[in-house]
């Protein structure tokens, strides 16, 4: 019985020590799915929301009607920075440009650049991702195989930007 108590105390002490280590209570740092910095609207076009009756919104007024409130009305023209998606290989942040309620450009503000592999991966993956987004007109794209982590971060950051613009594709 005394030995059992000794074992128990020893085990509890060991577990307590383990939990005092920084990574044991840090929460996620590497997992995509967490956007570290808040997305931010950089600029909006004049009369930018559909509620204001933008010229470029012909034929799709229905989506403005479904928006519910002025706060969540889609931005017709805007440049929005996505949040920073922290991936296993480093932060990914994109900036999306919306014109006439279409995604017309995606620029990468931050990308993993810890080593040469990252640079290689970025050089072929990021242009592909941009093309996919412009085609799909959403963040819901396949991603680039071999660059899954970066693709995830890219989607994450882009989605946060689109959400901020209340973009509905």
């Amino acid at each position, binding site marked *: *019985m005394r030995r*059992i108590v000794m*074992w128990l105390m020893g*085990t509890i002490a*060991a*577990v307590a020590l*383990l*939990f005092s*280590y920084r*990574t*044991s209570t*840090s*929460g*996620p*740092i*590497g*997992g*995509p*799915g967490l956007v570290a910095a808040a997305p931010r609207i950089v600029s909006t076009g004049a009369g930018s929301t559909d509620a204001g009756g933008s010229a470029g919104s012909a034929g799709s007024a229905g989506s403005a009607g479904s928006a519910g409130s002025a706060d969540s009305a889609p931005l017709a023209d805007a440049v929005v920075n996505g949040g920073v998606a922290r991936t296993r*290989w480093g932060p990914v942040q994109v900036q999306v440009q919306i014109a006439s309620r279409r995604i017309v450009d995606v620029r990468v503000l931050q990308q993993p650049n*810890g*080593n*040469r*592999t990252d640079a290689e991966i970025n050089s072929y993956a990021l242009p592909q991702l941009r093309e996919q987004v412009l085609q799909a007109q959403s963040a819901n794209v*396949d*991603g680039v*195989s*071999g*660059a*899954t982590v970066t693709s*995830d971060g890219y989607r994450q950051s882009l989605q946060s930007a689109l959400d901020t613009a209340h973009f509905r594709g």
Partner: protein
Amino acid sequence: MADRPLATGRGWGLSDRPQWSRRLLAILGGASLAVVLGLWAGNHGLTDLASPGSAATSLGRVTGLVAADLLLIQVILMARVPLIELSWGRDQLTRWHRLVGLTSFNLMLAHILLITVGYASAAEAGLISEAWDLVVNYPGMLLATAATVALIGVVVTSFRAIRPKFRYESWHLLHLYAYLGVGLAIPHELWTGTDFVSSPAATAYWWSVYALAAGCIVVFRLGLPVYRSTRHRLRVRAVVREAPGVYSVHLSGRRLDRLPVRSGQFCHWRFLSGPGWSRAHPYSLSAAPHPDRLRITVKALGDDSALVRRLRPGTRVLFEGPYGTLTGAQRQRTRVTMIASGIGITPLRALLESLPYPPGAATLVYRARADADFAFRAELDALAAQRGIRLHYLAGRRAGPLRWAPHGHGSDVALLRRLVPDLARHDVYVCGPDTWMDAVLDTARRLGVPEAQLHSERFAW
């Protein structure tokens, strides 16, 4: 087939051999693995597998996920959930425990290796330095490393070559570190792995399985035993010597008709008589249960078993159980033959008392090392006279290591055929040491007894 003691008439009823529950549980287990694979595939598992850069990491993910799922299935299988216990019986569950546990462990080792290789190649780092980086810098990974150490300890102390070096009780305490391993692995699954939180479905699935496993442990391994021990208030009434080294413990208690225990089953007992209480011992009932009393019979083998004979009347008794499937629920035929060796008589003695059968339809073959070693001889003779049981006492050492019959009775097959000529039409209940039971079951099969009519449960740990 009803199996109710004549004394009470109600309260002992359990469902018949639950074929449906086996199927249901097997489907659930299979479905859980399918869900895990589906979630992995949905989180780019298959596409990553196709590309050389991420194949190792993707394989590492799926091995880790399946290992975690099997580990939780494992916890649930051993949580003493009544439905699971009754569906397969303890010895079958113990075999699976070994198989599922080792599979999960091997997958975990593969997971560690593959993830290290995958991350190392992506970061263009060496294996060792990447492993170090993973352990030291990735969230929750030091805890996961400790979990790995705990699980390695559990598996290594369970190797057949190593386990006998430990006392059962010490080994069992070490085995509890598996729970620590399961728990310490969670943070890295959430923070470093991406599959647990990849989608709401994945998050819901994994937390449900963890909650289910934890719930099963809390309810069935802790709550139910505490509730039953409190409710039935068992105390030692008397200790009676039955044979050299064999003692019966008579227990008194309350409302035992509300305890779903039946002849042939066992419980894990703790006698609150002193230092040994921290260790529970599996002993079978040796008489049909009654609303106010139970009887168990113990062979004083280990250190603690020897303490049984010094138990004082009035000692409080805690128990976990009842467990075991060697009961009347397994009956297929009207005729029944019980074959016991040594202390294996205990559950069969209880079954002979409570099973229904017409006079002349039951046979007991009871083997012991010497004439003096037969326990319950007077009881058995009285029961035989009352219910028309044919009794065969076989005294003597086993004729060989693969034999069950004692010397001087001819071959095993010839002996059993002579004792029970129509054995193929009997239910055959067997209880005794492992190798002895193997020999009996082999003989019974040779005499044409179908598998469904063979009933045995192993109690060796």
